[in-house]
């Protein structure tokens, strides 16, 4: 089975400025996205994430390298037929209603009228905009625009969905809704390739991630392989135990009335504290081991690159 996306040694530079100066944006990106997985593409601002996506979509032409979508050259019509795309901060024709807007995009795929209408009503329901069908896009909120953007990306029922910062600028509820839709894509067998700054979201839903810094992929792999189960430290909140007794067992972070929050770096010390609490007839309010997160890896990778 061919990979959904295969990028090999992708290079792109731009000549910018009044006195043109060449700036190398992509310095040899290679990555593969397997069919049916959710792939997170991370990187700091200016790392080349959007440039990679634009190369993938044929909006800009790479200087070197090859891109294949389901084994087809990325510029071929057959490759495009299987592709859906939602840009960052989407702007659409704001004088159209949600329904007219989706009809226009469906016409670009040459769908028949009955098929088109059925698909549009299904999509509007999927993204929760069935009540806004005759509302002009200019009256849409940021979250609604993001959702109608997702609907246009799905109008051709694509096998591969590319999303550029789909969670940016949304409130927590909006983020959850989009996240749920992305998870539903996976259940339907679609492949999702997306970029995001919100690392918790990526950690929650991605199977594979690639971290790009300065135009190069510096780390990639399955999320479980990258994020180890190793406990970095444990946070314990106890009450009813004098502060003096706890001294030396852990690093005191904050004291609020009777409650003391401790950060314990050595795992063995946790049992000592629990024994002490029992002995002093105190209470454990909370105990949370902090394992390594994607954020730790991201910060470590970017700082080290």
């Amino acid at each position, binding site marked *: 089975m061919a990979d959904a996306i295969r990028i090999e040694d992708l290079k792109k530079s731009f000549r910018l400025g009044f006195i043109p100066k060449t700036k190398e944006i992509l310095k040899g990106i290679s990555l593969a996205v397997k069919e049916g997985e959710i792939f997170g593409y991370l990187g700091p601002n200016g790392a080349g994430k959007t440039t990679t996506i634009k190369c993938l979509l044929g909006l800009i032409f790479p200087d070197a390298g090859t891109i294949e979508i389901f084994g087809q050259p990325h510029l071929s019509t057959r490759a495009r037929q299987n592709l859906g795309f939602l840009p960052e901060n989407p*702007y659409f024709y704001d*004088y159209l209603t949600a329904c007219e807007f989706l009809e226009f995009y469906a016409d670009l795929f040459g769908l028949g009228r009955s098929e088109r209408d059925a698909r549009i009503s299904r999509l509007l329901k999927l993204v929760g905009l069935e009540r806004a069908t005759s509302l002009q896009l200019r009256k849409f909120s940021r979250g609604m625009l993001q959702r109608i953007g997702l609907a246009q990306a799905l109008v051709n029922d694509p096998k591969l969905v590319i999303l550029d910062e789909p969670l940016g600028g949304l409130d927590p509820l909006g983020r959850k809704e989009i996240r749920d839709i992305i998870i539903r894509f996976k259940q339907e067998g679609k492949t999702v390739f997306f970029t995001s700054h919100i690392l918790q979201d990526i950690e929650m839903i991605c199977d594979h991630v690639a971290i790009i810094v300065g135009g190069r992929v510096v780390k990639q792999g399955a999320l479980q392989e990258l994020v180890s189960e190793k406990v970095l430290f444990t946070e314990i909140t106890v009450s009813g135990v004098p502060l003096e007794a706890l001294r030396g067992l852990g690093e005191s972070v904050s004291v609020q009335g009777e409650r003391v929050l401790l950060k314990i770096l050595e795992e063995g010390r946790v049992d000592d504290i629990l024994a002490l609490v029992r002995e002093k007839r105190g209470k454990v309010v909370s105990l949370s081991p902090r394992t390594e997160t994607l954020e730790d890896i991201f910060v470590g990778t970017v700082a080290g690159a």
Partner: protein
Amino acid sequence: MKIGAIAGITFKEAKRDRILYLLFFFAAVGIIASRILAILTVGDRVKIIKDVGLASISIFGVLMAVLIGTSLVYKEIDKKTIFTLLSKPLHRAQFILGKFLGLVLTLFVMTVGMSLIFLVLVYLHTFRVEWTMLVAIAYIFLELVLITAVAILFSSFSTPILSSIFSLAFYLIGHLSWGLELLIKKMKAGTGRVVAQFLYVFLPDLENFNFKTEVVHNLPIPAGIFLYSLLYGLFYTAFILALAILIFRRRDFI
């Protein structure tokens, strides 16, 4: 089908542009004002109405083509709507042709509107409408089609202000280039004449579409010239569109 979808959306967008209605209003004022000019003129009043009316249709039509045409493609790039469009199975040539046809449709509706005002005014004075007037309007429209292609060509790589200046320059050069023909006849053989001949071949000659004088003064028009002007307009438009597609196909959308 895809070109039709782009043309449809372009028409919808263009007809929302207030500039279009402002120019239409001024064109209507121009046509109707010809009646006042006619009163002030000694001689055939209808000639003045025809002359000023046709000139108004031509000038305001060109302004519509330039001002809307130069911003259409640029707006798509500037507002990034083009990102979602070109990620679909849509060739860049289809995008350009769709934009072109959408604007041609807009100008067709506007030309019909302006012409109706003009023809009603003439009919009220003469109680008849000559077919030659319709021919003159048809060739004005053909000129607008060519100007639209030029506006889209410039708009595919430049900003609206620059594109407008370039397109209007094209229009002016096109209506003055016949002077080169005169110059060539009067020049002695030599490098200067070769340069003038070269320029005359490559620069547009928009006077090919100008039948105003013949219509106003009821002069005979040789039949062959219609076909020549028609073919000239169609081939020149096709050439300009091909050039626009060639430039647009190689463009990076940063």
